[in-house]
Structures are given as C-alpha cells and as structure tokens.
C-alpha cells in the first residue's frame, strides 16, 4: 500500500496512470506524451509496476501497460479510514464541549433572582 502511494506521489506518474486508465498503451506511446527521455519514463513505469499500480504485458519487443484500478480503490478506502478516526474524535470532543456549555448555561439560569 505504501509503495503504491509513494509511486503516486509524482506528477508524471499520475499522468501515466491517467493515460493507461482506460486503454492499454505501449511504452513508446506513453513516452511520447512527455518531454523527458525514454529511460526516465521507463524508470517511472518500473516504479509503478513494482508498486502494483500498472500491469505490464510483453509482446515480442513491445511492452504494454494498463492500470490496476483495484489499487486505487484501496487508497480510497484508506482515506475513508483516516477521516473516520478523526471524525470520531471530533464528535467526542465537540459533545464534551456541548455538555460543558449546557452545564454553564443551566447554572446561569439558576443564579437569576
């Protein structure tokens, strides 16, 4: 999971993922979208493949890449957990403040002559 996220922490890799999201594309096709060297793109592809974000298929001397969409679903689930933990704590703390506020308010009412 961490490898997948680290692999996504790069603008070019996210662009690559976008390119292969719907259709399988060859390494050459992918590289043609960028202004950097072919070896640099190959390096990105290797990182992404290692992280399980894309799948590679070889046909002769050609390599084709496609996205592992399930991986991104996992990321989304992780973000959901992140917020669930935080919001749980927020609820607890806000409710505590509400009880304190109500106690103070009821005390004020009782003090009135």
């Amino acid at each position: 999971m961490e490898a997948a996220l680290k692999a996504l922490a790069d603008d070019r890799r996210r662009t690559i993922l976008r390119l292969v999201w719907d259709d399988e594309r060859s390494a050459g096709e992918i590289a043609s979208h960028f202004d950097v060297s072919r070896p640099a793109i190959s390096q990105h592809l290797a990182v992404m493949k290692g992280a399980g974000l894309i799948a590679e298929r070889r046909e002769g001397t050609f390599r084709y890449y496609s996205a592992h969409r399930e991986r991104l679903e996992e990321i989304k689930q992780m973000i959901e957990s992140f917020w669930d933990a935080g919001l749980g704590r927020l609820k607890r703390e806000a409710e505590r403040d509400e009880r304190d506020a109500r106690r103070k308010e009821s005390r004020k009412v009782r003090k009135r002559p």
Partner: protein
Amino acid sequence: MTRSDVVERQVRIDARPEIVFEFFTDPAKMIRWKGVEAKLEPQPGGVYRVVMNEAQYVANGTFVELVPHSKIVFTWGWEGSSDVPPGSSTVEVTLTPDGDGTMLRLIHSGLPVPALAAHGEGWDKFLPRLATVAAGGEVPTDA
C-alpha cells in the same frame, strides 16, 4: 451512485453547529482531534497548517470558504515539498442543524482517480503520509 473520485463521510454530533464549527477554526480545539500543533487563519486565503502527530508531517493549505456555522472549505498539501502546489486536494465540511445536534458531512475531493482528477493536483507527500497512518490503523491519540 457514489462518485469514485471523492471520499464522503457523515457523522451526527450531539453538539450545536456553532460548537462543532470551532473545531475547524480554533487551533486549540483543532489539536484535540487532529495534530499536535495548528495555525489557522479562518478567512478565505488564510493559513491552514496542522503539524501531525508524527511531527515530520505538516499539512499545509489554505481556507477557501467559511460560512459560520455551516460550512468550511480548505485545501491542503504537504509542507517541505517544493512541487506540491497549494490546493493538492480539497476538503469541504458542511454542518446542518439536526434537532439539538449537528449533522456533519465531509467531502474530500482530488483523489488519484485519473479519469476524474483535476489537472495540476498534487499528492506528492500526502499519500505517503496517509500510508503511514493507515498502516498504523488510526491517528494516534493526543491525550
């Protein structure tokens, strides 16, 4: 049908909206549920900065919109990364009165779903940080 490029969360809180709202705008209240140190300037363009429990991770973004006591919108990326533009992802929180309490709804957009991700959004540091948190299971308690 739920969209795949956003995370949506909802929770009912037994506290009035004005109390809940402050937990997003008051640094002392922020760190009771998220982070160990916070700098918050609750106005459009104002700083939203929260040092997370692991200290080496600092969420940095800006407030986009605030409507007391019903809406907070802010962006964030990660500090220390020279190529994370402000506004890597966007969080929108709405607070709706619900009886004596509040219905809080959170929408976190800018997920790395290529088909729907906006151009220019960066997740350079946010995602590794999230991985660490998720691997640990949850945000560690401050208390």
